[in-house]
């Protein structure tokens, strides 16, 4: 397992390299001059050129890339163009809120989604199935920012149950993770429903019944594990989207996470921060894929043992 993981991780390096080049080209292709944006509207040309010199933005692109890569490889992500703060500081403070947010979203989305999926599958084409389907499809039809705003209006302003946002207590995370998880929950519910339905048609489920097992064992032990294998893959992919897609939720709920950091950095063309963030996104995406594969192996002995 360890060697496999290592192998996979090493295989990631070229990908990261490609990503870094693309990212670099891409963000430099986007119009907008960070020097001008930082300097502000009333800046003089001299001032702007000074900033460009200081940041090395007057160098040819390839030179900038080499410098950047050199520093990155040395573990120096540089300083934010906009605030002058070390990029590592910025990342350090914004990663955890996003990680918590996504983990919590994922957790409840998985639990509820699987539950709905299972109930839907067991009561296939009966009313619990219809209700489950409706709930799950509704979950993916609501715009996230809208759901967030409504939740705040109802649960914070009207009822005063939970804080409107921030990251002060675990209670601050309730609404954001509800909002963020809604779509994923729906996805998982739908995938687990269809994969459960498929699994329930398998021969070994019939075998389990032929043994005289009770229904909950048939479903819970024999069908669920097998469906999980497929659901995990979907959930893993979604996880990547979660991390990247938390921008809106972080904005609505004032969570100082990497999503918001990214938006801000993009708006100000804070190249160093964007580059670092994108490498993190890429690495995270790859890591999650790897994790999914490993989990896949844990759940699926065929892969684990052969």
């Amino acid at each position, binding site marked *: 397992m360890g060697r496999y993981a290592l192998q996979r991780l090493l295989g990631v390096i070229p990908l990261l390299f490609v990503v870094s080049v693309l990212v670099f080209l891409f963000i430099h292709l986007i119009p907008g001059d960070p020097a001008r944006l930082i300097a502000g509207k009333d800046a003089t040309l001299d001032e702007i050129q000074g900033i460009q010199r200081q940041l090395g933005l007057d160098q040819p692109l390839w030179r900038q890339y080499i410098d950047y890569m050199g520093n990155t490889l040395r573990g120096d992500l540089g300083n934010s163009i906009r605030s002058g703060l070390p990029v590592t500081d910025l990342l350090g403070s914004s990663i955890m809120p996003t990680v918590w947010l996504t983990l919590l979203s994922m957790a409840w989305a998985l639990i509820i989604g699987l539950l709905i999926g299972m109930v839907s599958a067991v009561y296939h084409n009966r009313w619990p199935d219809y209700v489950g389907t409706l709930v799950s499809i509704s979950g993916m039809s609501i715009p996230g920012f809208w759901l967030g705003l409504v939740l705040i209006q109802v649960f914070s302003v009207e009822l005063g149950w939970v804080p409107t946002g921030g990251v002060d207590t675990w209670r601050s995370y309730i609404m954001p993770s509800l909002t963020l998880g809604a779509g994923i929950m729906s996805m998982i519910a739908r995938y687990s429903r269809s994969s459960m339905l498929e699994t329930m048609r398998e021969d070994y489920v019939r075998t389990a019944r032929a043994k*005289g097992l009770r229904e909950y064992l048939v479903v819970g032990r024999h069908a669920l594990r097998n469906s999980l294998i497929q659901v995990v893959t979907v959930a893993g992919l979604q996880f990547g989207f979660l991390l990247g897609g938390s921008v809106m939720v972080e904005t609505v709920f004032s969570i100082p996470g990497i999503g918001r950091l990214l938006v801000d950095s993009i708006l100000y063309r804070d190249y160093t921060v964007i580059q670092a963030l994108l490498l993190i996104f890429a690495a995270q995406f790859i890591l999650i894929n790897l994790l999914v594969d490993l989990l896949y192996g844990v759940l699926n002995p065929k892969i684990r043992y052969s």
Partner: protein
Amino acid sequence: MTQHLLEVEGLKTEFKRGGGSVTAVAGVDFHIRKGEVLGLVGESGCGKSVTSLSIMRLLKDTPGKITGGSVRFEGTDLTKLSEKDMRRARGNDLAMIFQEPMTSLNPVLRIGLQLTEPIMLHLGYGRKKAREHAIHMLKLVGIPRAEEVIDEYPHQLSGGMRQRVMIAMAMSCNPKLLIADEPTTALDVTIQAQILDLMKRLKEEQEMGMLLITHDLGVVAEMCDRVVVMYAGRVVEEAPVQELFSNPKHPYTKGLIQSVPKLRQKVRRLESIKGNVPDLSQMPPGCKFAARCPFAMEKCVASEPELIPLAGASERKSRCWLTQDEAVEGGDRA
């Protein structure tokens, strides 16, 4: 008359399909005695599996439903049992082996768990004792390294081994009746020979009744005491195995036996039954075989003959107008 182990009478199973429903099994009668192997043969789709699933009441996840007849097992009608009582019987008195050893075992659970499930459930053994019993069963079906195999996953075993595991599982609670639905069809001949050998041996040791479903007449000839031939959801002939092969009565049975290429038979051309099995949803009114029957008469197309015991032989029945005259006078018509 002595009580049979299993008595199936007028069993009828329908499937919902589209708007209406089709009758996959349309009034099947047969019986199995203790220690007897009954073969159930017939073409694909004639209702063999549905019959066996109906007996086990395993139609839950299909659109199928038993709509008539009775399945008496040691006197009790299984079709009338509550789901709970039926669960108690399944895996215990009645065990089943399925055709596909590759897919009938749960790929993500260890052999041990799957084997001990029915043992703990029906025999009430503890985990440890159940495991010992499971190992014993694995040894019984001739699996080498039983102690290791029990902790492995199905995909680590070959097809033949898996089918042995399935057999061990089915036999683990000393069933009185074993239903084997094409247990060797998916296996290679050399492995099939091993498995058939094993089943024969076990059957003799355990004294249980067996319903062996197959389309391979060779297997029937080797394994069975009596044979029931099905066609289009109906029993068309029933006979002791020797007589079936030496003197088939129903034209379908005849055609079937003649169309099988036999080793060292050296015929230029094979006989064959023309045409195809009729579609379940569009059954002709008369004899279901009439359209393919070389001896079909007008009568055959018009009305369907009944399954009638034949005179001169014990336990012979046939569903054909041609053999009606051989019928036992005043015999107990089904």
